[in-house]
């Protein structure tokens, strides 16, 4: 509608400005992956292998080859993500394909086994593959649900700003605690010495910090402030208010760290399991051909 004299816009009319990796190109890779699974299942049912379906039949080899090629290609996402080469590629499209083709491996891999599982290196490879896929499923779930919460929680603050805010309160606490007697000052010092990143993995992932020195300090100080009327002049009241603010800021920071951790933690399973899978897969393939 705007009557612009200069060059027309670069984007074609009607092209969607943005959709996420799951909806990419109108679910193109979901459709392709579904078709692949459908073909695999249909042929599994139609092909008659004697005595029964197994990994060593021609059908089993076909599925195995497709599977291993897919796994190798899926692994390449890590390279694609980090290699900023020129050219018209989109990491979003790669992610989309990675997700849906990765899920299709459940079908392809399982059909490849012919449902023959046991305590051997072959089933180890299968189990590792399922572990990778399951961790990936967890990843998809958090990617789809957590970004909104992350955005809401940070309220335009960056992580650095949150830490800076905590430090600013700490400085005020330090000044405000000067007139306090020894015992009370020790409590405040404990809060000051507390590492906002400390508490270990469980605390990080749950967002619960039972040994939080700030909470402990505040609870202890409340014993003193509890029976006194608020005069607005007591140094302890100021310290109490500052501890309250620090608690609120810590809560936001911890929520932020929790969400970030959840968005990343699954990769610590997904990626190492992938490499374990590649190793097991090598053993699986070598052993199959060795004992041909």
């Amino acid at each position, binding site marked *: 509608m705007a009557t612009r004299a200069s060059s027309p816009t670069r984007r074609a009319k009607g092209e969607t400005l943005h959709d996420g990796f799951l909806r990419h190109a109108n679910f193109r890779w979901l459709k392709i992956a579904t078709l692949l699974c459908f073909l695999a299942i249909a042929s599994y049912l139609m092909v008659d292998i004697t005595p029964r379906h197994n990994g060593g039949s021609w059908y089993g080899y076909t599925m195995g080859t497709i599977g291993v090629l897919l796994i190798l290609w899926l692994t390449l996402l890590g390279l694609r993500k980090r290699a900023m080469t020129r050219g018209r590629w989109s990491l979003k499209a790669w992610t989309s394909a990675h997700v849906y083709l990765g899920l299709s491996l459940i079908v392809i891999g399982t059909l490849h086994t012919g449902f023959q599982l046991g305590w051997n290196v072959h089933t180890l490879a299968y189990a590792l593959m399922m572990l990778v896929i399951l961790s990936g499923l967890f990843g998809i779930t*958090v990617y789809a649900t957590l970004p909104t919460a992350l*955005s809401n929680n940070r309220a335009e603050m960056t992580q650095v700003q949150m830490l800076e805010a905590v430090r600013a309160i700490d400085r005020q606490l330090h000044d405000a605690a000067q007139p306090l007697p020894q015992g009370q000052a020790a409590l405040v010092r404990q809060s000051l010495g507390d590492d906002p990143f400390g508490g270990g993995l469980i605390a990080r992932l749950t967002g619960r910090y039972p040994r939080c020195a700030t909470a402990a300090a505040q609870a202890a100080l409340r014993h003193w402030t509890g029976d006194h009327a608020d005069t607005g002049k007591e140094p302890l009241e100021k310290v109490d208010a500052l501890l309250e603010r620090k608690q609120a800021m810590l809560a936001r920071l911890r929520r932020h760290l929790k969400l970030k951790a959840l968005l990343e933690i699954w990769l610590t399973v997904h990626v190492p399991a992938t490499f374990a899978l590649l190793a097991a897969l090598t053993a699986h393939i070598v052993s199959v051909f060795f004992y041909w």
Partner: protein
Amino acid sequence: MTERVRIAIVGSGPAGLSAAARAAQLGLSHLLIEKTDHLSDTIFKYQKGKHVMATPSQLVLRSDCDFEAGKREAILGRWNEQAAAQGINVAFHAEVKAITGTGDPIPGSIQKIVERKRDGSTDIKEIQRLAPPYRLTLSDGREVIADAVIMAIGTQGNPNLMRVPGAELPHVQYQLDDPAEYNDEHIFIVGTGDAGIENAMGLAADEAQGNVVTILNRSTEFASAKPANVKGLMAAAEAGRLSIMTESTTAKIEPGFITLDSRDGEVKLKCDRIIARMGSAPPRGFVESCGIEFTSGDRLAFPKLSPVFESTAPGIFVIGALAGYPLIKHCMNQGYDVVEYINGNRDLKPADEPILAAKFASLPEKRSVAEWLEYLRTNVSILEGLSPLQMREFMLDSEVRAYRAGETIFEKHDAGSSLFGIATGQALVEVAPRANVPIAAGSIFGEVGLISGRRRGSTVRAGTDSIMVEVSRSAALKLMSSNPPAKRAITRISTERQLLQMFGAGLTPADLSEVLDSAEIQTVKAGEAILTEGDLGTDIYVIRVGSMIVEKKIGGKNVFLSYLPAGSYVGEMALIAGGPRTATVKATVKSEVIRLNGDAFARLMAAKPALLERARRDMAARQDVNAFIESRKDSFSTVVDMYSETAKFLVDNGIGEATDVLLIDEHLCVGCDNCEKACADSHEGLSRLDREAGRTYAHLHVPTSCRHCEHPHCMADCPPNAIHRGSDGEVFIDETCIGCGNCQRNCPYGVIRMDSVPPKKPGLLSWMFFGQGPGPGEPSKKWRYKNAEPGVEKPKKAIKCDMCSGIDGGPACVRACPTGAAIRVSPEDFLTVARLDGQAN
């Protein structure tokens, strides 16, 4: 009591003092007349300890008095000593009241003095000029008879006054004697010339004084100040010692408060003192009464002078600031030169002669410098208002070149922001292959580059053998700020070309002349409406600078309809279809519109059916949008609300002046920062975006990253002129960056960083398999420090987004986003109802 001298010198500033010194050296009888009790009152009134500069640096000083950059006190002290040592004859406390000839009437020499009255009428007085010698009547009743008079009275006689309500209040002052006098005050400095900047710095220099100093600039540039001063001011602002408000003008002054019109609308601020340093106009009445004519009736015009500074009254010479030359070195040289001339030395060339002679040396015809200057001044229309003296200064900053017929002056897409004036010959603008539009001698071209900073839009060749003046961007801005007629001429030409380009449809400049005569350029404040829904009116508005949003009131709420970038027009609907305005059009940022008279435009459309057709098509598209919004208002009111609010948020965050902006959908962003890493890996290892910082509304995040503004603030003050707009609209910084940091300070969105290129990283695979190097993304400071080439300090240069221009595949940030959260949009693409349609479905 009458004294008789050979030369009377009025005013003891650098020009007068230098003239008197030369007269004393030559043994001529002279009298230096000074109205105060000390020499050089203008410099005497400078702030204590002010550093006086000696520009232009390439100019040699030719005077019997010394002068070099230094403190005010040192300079005045040396001059006092030298004046005494050379035996200069000074009359202090003497003000000249009148200068009249005592000889016979000069035949045909009649001075016409036009007196403008407040009611707009004029009075013309005619005075018969009399031949020298002149009688100077002084305020103390003395009379001096002189063969020649040198007027060196400067311009401080009447400083330009503020013309806003409250300007007469006692806390508005036009002079700052001692900045140490003021403590704990909120002080506003109006005017961004050297005086204003120095006052501001003086008041803010000592933090213990506790002054809150703000300097107001009506534009974004500091075109009339010395670069060193501007740099100092920027550094002071950076350090938080004072603040600079750009694009702000004073609207009202009240005791204790000042009201400003700023980019963001009207603001009222606490203010204890206003120091207005808005330049000064010549003390014209007195000068004219002496028989000296001015170049034009314009308030800022200078006296008509011959190349030897002789005015229209024979024997009266005008030098220094009054002659249009405010720089001390020039003044002193002129004093020397004029006395030499009066003493009969006809061969003396001005001190800048060799510099200019070198510029003219390559031209085909052989003329003297003075002849060339006059030739260019009379042949290039925008230079006509300049005095010969100003012309000299102007040419020092400009180039002149001869072109053979067919020779290319600049190519399409060349970077360049200079303006060309055609002295002789013709320029051919290639609008399409083998289709040229001629531009005749006297006119200008290249003004689009000057105004927008964009690359050259077309190739221009010389049509015939030509001589062209190339005016650098800074010289052109100075010309426009100091010479209103030149500004008007450039504005008219650029307006005409913008209309021709916009409407196309086979229009010629001749067709547009009526519309152009009625055209008026208006400045619109941020948030101000040019059209209001329901009002009557048929004028058409063309957006020249800035951008607008269109809103319509539906069910008591303002619904955002669309975004109009510069180069769009509005108002045709009421003109073609009749009836009141159907929507409100408001400025998103401080903008400029060209207002075209509706009737004149209607006549033009009647004469040009193709134009009418074009306008009808545009109107139909707009009516569709209106109808669409109307139809959706009930069923999708929440969606429409959301859309309107989001649009407002984006406009508030500078998207109104953006051409291409990175947005992040926080429904999708997982915070992996792969966009930043990709940016760094695509550009020498430095990221030009900060994903996490920036504002967010409804999960739409505007990260700290370049918006590629239509009128980039960063371009405003780049000493090497290293910031350009590329062919895809990207604003980029080229390799000539000197790392001064002006652009970083001028960017309101904080997207420019100063950094040096980090050492080269090992390849990706060696990182992956052998753990070499810091991995993808920007290397840490520690790694950079450890791996820096020893002994080599790489300069910090300005770094900003260049939209990955020249990189196949486009912006790396978008390509590298794994979830599709990062998108790049241009506002007119993003802020349309088409999006609303998509969301509703």
